[in-house]
């Protein structure tokens, strides 16, 4: 692992965490969505650093390019009004509960830190990065792949039915 790669890795990690913090504190849905796109780009950089360039490309195309566009499109469609008139935070009880959950997750994090991960040196990735993923996807995980296509069909039908102007009687 060269120092250059290490530097890039920590740079993208800091970008992801900082953008996520900014995302979760924004009031306006549009700026929150744009910070979330920033998180997704930083994560795609992290995927490249972790030897998964195909997943990085799919991350940019699907998450930043498709899912977040749908979010921004819905914000545009709904005409929500000014950000300072929008509902913001829950009541105090829920916020205290969220703090407790955050502390529990942080304790979990420290426990993970104490475990020592086994050092396994895999073979360096070959130039062809799509082939192993495709082989695995279309042999070992073929059933999951086919079920996913059925799920997407159900989701399309459900979304169209839910977003119709008038319910079918």
């Amino acid at each position: 692992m060269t120092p250059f790669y290490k530097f890039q890795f920590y740079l993208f990690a800091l970008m992801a965490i900082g953008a996520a913090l900014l995302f979760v504190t924004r009031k306006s849905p549009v700026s929150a969505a744009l910070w979330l796109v920033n998180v997704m780009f930083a994560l795609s950089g992290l995927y490249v650093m972790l030897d998964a360039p195909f997943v990085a490309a799919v991350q940019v195309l699907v998450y930043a390019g498709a899912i977040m566009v749908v979010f921004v499109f819905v914000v545009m469609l709904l005409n929500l009004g000014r950000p300072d008139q929008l509902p913001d935070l829950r009541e105090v009880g829920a916020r205290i509960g969220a703090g407790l959950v955050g502390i529990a997750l942080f304790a979990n994090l420290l426990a993970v830190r104490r475990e020592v991960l086994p050092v396994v040196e895999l073979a360096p990735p070959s130039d062809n990065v799509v082939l192993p993923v495709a082989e695995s996807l279309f042999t070992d995980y073929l059933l999951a792949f086919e079920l996913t296509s059925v799920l997407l069909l159900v989701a399309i039908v459900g979304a169209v039915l839910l977003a119709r102007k008038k319910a079918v009687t």
Partner: protein
Amino acid sequence: MMIGDALIVSAILFAIGVVGVLTRRNAIILFMCVELMLNAVNLSFVAFAKLHGVGGHVFVIIVMTIAAAEAAVGLAIVISVFRHFGALDLQNLKLLRR
């Protein structure tokens, strides 16, 4: 050790997503926090794929598909909630509490 660091980044992002889901009241921002949590899990899948082979990448692609389906259906629900209540405040959604 880059895998451990990636797992810690993933845990931090997941915790930020959980706190967002638990504290915000705007339905669209809540959905975006769920997407952030899915992304954090994807990062840990990719990190573990360095230890255990390429299956993790396949999981990430399937999780992305599920996230797309969830976003489509969830945003359709958001649109119909907005049509019904005229606002995205989750405090409105307590018809079952009576």
